[in-house]
């Protein structure tokens, strides 16, 4: 997995509730911003399609490094932006919890991790438009940075919250999570390359999905 999902009972009750509250606050802000203008039905269907596709593709096992699944959250951020993307993150996490791919009590924490990935990927991809010519490089770079930022937030959340029943101190927990984060980023590199190729393909055949002008092809 290029994204770590925590299971129920991993975080203490008070911290799980705290991250839930923060995530709800973030989602409320996203909803307020989204409702400023009437949301076109086409955007709703795009968000729904993105949620379903991201969730379905995350079930495909890629036979690399012994078999990995991708989170594709950075891709959602690039396609939808951080506002609608955060809603996709919530629903994807609900679907994931429904199939045991993460816990209900830690959806709040996972939404915060995903929102970081969405926001970072969207910002980097938009910032590099016009500055970097290759869509592959932009997409892969944005995805890798997004997953790196998400991993840092995950390490921060787990270190601050603590893991139930673990007698080790915060420093030892953080050290263990850093090792885990490094492994996570190795898989993140695979996700970055896949996302880069995917975005380059979309830019060639369906630039309208990316909201960009068609890429000029060499003669």
């Amino acid at each position, binding site marked *: 997995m290029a994204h770590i999902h925590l299971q129920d009972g991993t975080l*203490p009750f008070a911290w799980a509730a705290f991250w839930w509250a923060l995530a709800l606050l973030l989602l409320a802000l996203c909803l307020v911003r989204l409702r400023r203008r009437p949301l076109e039905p086409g955007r709703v269907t795009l*968000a729904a399609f993105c949620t379903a596709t991201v*969730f379905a593709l995350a079930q495909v096992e890629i036979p*690399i490094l012994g078999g990995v699944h991708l989170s594709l959250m950075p891709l959602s951020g690039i396609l939808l932006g951080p506002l609608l993307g955060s809603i996709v993150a919530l629903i994807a996490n609900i679907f994931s919890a429904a199939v045991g791919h993460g*816990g209900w009590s830690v959806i709040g924490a996972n939404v915060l991790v995903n929102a970081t990935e969405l926001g970072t990927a969207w910002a980097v991809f938009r910032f590099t438009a016009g500055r970097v010519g290759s869509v592959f490089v932009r997409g892969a770079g944005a995805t890798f940075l997004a997953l790196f930022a998400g991993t840092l937030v995950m390490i921060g959340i787990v270190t601050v919250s603590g893991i139930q029943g673990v007698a080790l101190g915060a420093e030892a927990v953080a050290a263990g999570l850093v090792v885990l984060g490094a492994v996570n980023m190795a898989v993140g590199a695979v996700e970055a390359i896949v996302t880069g190729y995917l975005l380059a393909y979309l830019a060639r055949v369906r630039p309208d999905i990316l909201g960009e002008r068609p890429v000029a092809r060499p003669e």
Partner: protein
Amino acid sequence: MPPLRRSSHIPDPNLITLYAERGGSALHRLDPRAKVGALAWLVVFVTLARPTWLLVAALAVTIVVYLLAGLPFRELLRWYSIPVLFVLSLVVFLVWEEPGAPVLAAGGLVLTTGGVALVVSLVARALTTVTFTLVLLMTTRYVHLAGLAAKVLPSPIDQVFLLSYRFLFTTLGLIDGLLLALRARGGGLVRGVLTSTRLFAGIFALSFVRAYDRADRVGRAMTARGYEGRFPPSEPLPPLSVVQLGAVAVAFAALAFAVLGGLPGFGGVVP
């Protein structure tokens, strides 16, 4: 190289729907609101309960409930692999040097009885809620889940949720078709990280474009039929079962009493 396919370790939504729509056990007849309430109670319970034996007992009870609902046990064991993997990947660095009697020592690391209890506790916590979540999903009809989602979630989250659930089935079918076509053409024999990565990027991109086109067509068709951002529920929720909801409320009250009253074995509100 393993065959190209969707992972069999993740529950298949089609199978879940089949059991939910066709099953006839007593659990299928329970109020969906009571089942959601029971799941919420269980999530809070496994978060607050401390003794390993209590958590293992909770897991055993939920497995019995799962079996009573007539749901497939072999699939359940297969579906457990991902949550167990998640827990192990998180605690593999943390179980060493826990207080307790040494059980195993290797390479300067000591696994104690406390470390083993930690792993068992976290696995039992995870699997308990996973099992009951599957009970909820596999014993509750779609129209009732959709009705609950429409009541609880604010707009446009409810719309995205309900639409994405519908798209999920067509998208899964589409990806299955692509993987099958790829395998039929020898795609499963491809070797090399870079080649595999490019190959799967192509599959993912094609899935995205096809699913996007389909979603676009669905969106236009919905707009043409008068969709303005609301899905009216196709079937109302069943009448509220006061007895069942009351039982859930009593369970919550008992849990609150156990925690606030300082009953041994209950804590976990703060680290």
